[in-house]
């Protein structure tokens, strides 16, 4: 991989490309190459670069142009600005589904896509290549002398019994700004009432709100946070340096997000896009049932704990919480619980 040209450009350099908010941009391979696949993704460059580099190893003649943006920015870019990207990768299943449902994608069929199980594919437009559960990340230091809570109910109990220990040291997504946080929260609320009880308890302790999983993990690692709720386990597991944190996949239920890829309708290089998606699928679906990827938790976890995992289903029902009224209503309830102003 050393021979590859890896250039990380500043946001400003890429800015003339688009009006939506770009967080990061990187080009793998020679710039301005004739064969170039433009990827728009929510995953950070350093999280995703191993995948791209192995793709480059398989297809050295294809340059990968990788742009990072928030899921809502991606929505704006594809449905609003018709930005020219070949592949869109996002963890926001609801927004991805909306793009596919509203006709902003083009269908793609290949041996790899057709071999996907039904739950990992919606029409011929959306393809899942990871399964990433939401975890509770705990600081081992903060829980010294307490058993690690394995369920939400146990977490509620611990929080209620030790309000002083946890005050201002609990973090979760700010649903108003994080698409993935909103998706996890709505699915949690759909699955069980315990979500609202937990949110109430967390709100009473002055929960801190975050935009991203990695910030929460950082703060738990540094000891600033004792508990981070609904953090992507994959991000936490990929950080091998973290010995001070415990990652708990709740036993009552763990919501599993599927990271999906799609090809926008106006993709400039749909053939290369198909190549890229095929690579994502074949490299992650080594086991027929469990996608493996640098981003997904190890298959062993899924094999031993099948019952607790609840995959979010791809389908038009994901449009429900994107509806303005529904979203307002949900966020209102959430604000009442969390902010308790």
């Amino acid at each position, binding site marked *: 991989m050393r021979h590859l040209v890896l250039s990380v450009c500043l946001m400003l350099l890429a800015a003339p490309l688009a009006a939506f908010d770009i967080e990061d941009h990187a080009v793998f391979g020679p710039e301005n190459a004739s064969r170039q696949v433009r990827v728009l993704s929510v995953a950070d460059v350093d999280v995703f670069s191993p995948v791209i580099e192995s793709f480059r190893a398989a297809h050295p003649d294809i340059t990968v142009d990788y742009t990072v943006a928030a899921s809502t920015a991606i929505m704006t870019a594809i449905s609003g600005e018709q930005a020219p990207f070949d592949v869109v990768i996002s963890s926001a299943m609801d927004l991805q589904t909306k793009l596919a449902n509203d006709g902003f994608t083009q269908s793609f069929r290949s041996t790899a896509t057709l071999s996907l199980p039904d739950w990992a594919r919606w029409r011929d437009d959306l393809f899942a290549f990871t399964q990433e559960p939401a975890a509770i990340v705990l600081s081992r230091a903060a829980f010294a002398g307490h058993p690690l809570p394995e369920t939400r109910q146990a977490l509620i109990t611990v929080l209620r019994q030790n309000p002083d220990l946890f005050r201002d040291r609990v973090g979760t997504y700010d649903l108003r700004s994080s698409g993935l946080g909103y998706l996890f929260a709505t699915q949690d609320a759909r699955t069980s009432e315990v979500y609202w009880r937990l949110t109430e308890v967390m709100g009473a302790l002055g929960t801190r709100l975050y935009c991203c999983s990695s910030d929460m993990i950082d703060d738990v690692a540094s000891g600033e946070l004792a508990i981070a709720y609904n953090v992507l386990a994959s991000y936490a597991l990929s950080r091998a340096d973290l010995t001070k944190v415990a990652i708990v996949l709740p036993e009552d239920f763990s919501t599993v997000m599927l990271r999906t890829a799609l090809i926008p309708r106006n993709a400039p290089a749909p053939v290369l896009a198909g190549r890229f998606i095929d690579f994502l699928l074949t490299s992650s679906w080594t086991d027929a049932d469990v996608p493996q990827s640098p981003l997904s938790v190890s298959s062993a976890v899924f094999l031993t704990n099948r019952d607790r995992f609840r995959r979010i289903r791809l389908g*038009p029902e994901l*449009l429900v919480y994107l509806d303005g009224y529904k979203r307002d209503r949900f966020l209102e309830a959430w604000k009442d619980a969390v902010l308790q102003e």
Partner: protein
Amino acid sequence: MSAAPVQGSIRRRLLVQLLGGAMLLAVALFIIVQSLARQLAQDSQDNILTAAASAMLDTVAMQDGALQVDLPYAAFSMLSSLGNERVFYAVHAPSGLVTGYQDLVPIAGTGTRFDTRAFRGEDMRLITATRMLALEQGPLPVTVTLAQTRDGLSRTVDQIVAMAAALGTGFFLSVAVLAGLAARTSIGPILRLTESVERRGPQDLRPVTAPVPAEMAPLVGALNTFMDRLKISLQRSEEFIADAAHRVRTPLATVRTQAEITLRRVEKEENRASVREMIRAIDESSRAAGQLLDHAMVTFRTDHLEPETIDLGALCEDTVERLRPMADLRDIDLRVTLCARPTTSGDRILVQSALRNVLDNAIKYSQPESEVDVTLRARSGMAALEVRDRGIGFPAGGPEGLTGRFVRGANVEGVVGSGLGLTIAEEVARAHGGHLSAQNNEEGPGACVTLCFPSA
């Protein structure tokens, strides 16, 4: 026999009608299954759309002076139960769009209404349902419009349609095979009747008695009546001939007597020769008349055969004895050899007549002072009466055709004959299920005629 003029074919007509019917049925089957499948698919989609729309309408409420919609997750889960179909929704109040897709326009009309139309470039099924929201200032109509793609349903319907097409084709093919068989079967009795009529001998004018299908009964009835009339007409002409022969023979006898008397009186040699010639002609005529009578008798008796058991040996000896005086006149020795004593079942007078005619021929065409051998044999279920002479034999062309009526050999100049002898013999043999064979002797002059009858 000349071929009958042909117009059309029952078998072809039957085939065309059956196949045409089958084709129509197959097409009808295909259309019915196809439209049923479409209808069912549409109905199931409509039912789900209706349920989802009414679930959505239930969540519309007025809160703090503003319309609120709380989209039910279950309604959309319901919609995705049909497969991976794209879904669009819009909630409208009289003031305009409340929530949902701006470009989804409600279907005009009242009540719950459906439509299939293109939306965002795809063929979609639409529903618009209305609910009256009861408010203080009066009822407020709120509509929910849902649009859903039909990809999965179309695929299912396509599969069913393909199956229906295969079913229709299979149906048609099996009917085609069955129609072929049916046509062949229904033509069968006609072919069998034709065959049985064709197989008959020229004299066989018996009615067809084998059972035939009801539809053919009138035809066979007409055929039988026709043959009956033909037979009567033939009988009449035979009777006429016999009558005529009889009436001619009696005066001829008188004429002959008178001619003989005249011969004695006539002195002049040339006149005597003339009268002799006259007597010879009279003899020929009277013999011909006799054989005509004989033939008429044979024809009549064969038609009304009353079989009895005949001892062929005795019959043979009896016949030979009757003809011996005639043979003696020419110094011909009639020798009878009975190698076996077989019996046969038949008409004694007919069999005797047959043998007499054959013997008569043998004596007539033999040289004076020669022998005629009559041998009775039994071989492989048949009784064979063999008459062998040392006469002139059959002409160079062989005996073929000599059994025809009034046909005489080319080498019989100067011998009185009518050409009916072998005809009679053969008709008798045939009538009894036997046959007549004739050939020249292999060694020496003369002919051999064999009459075969089945042994009883």
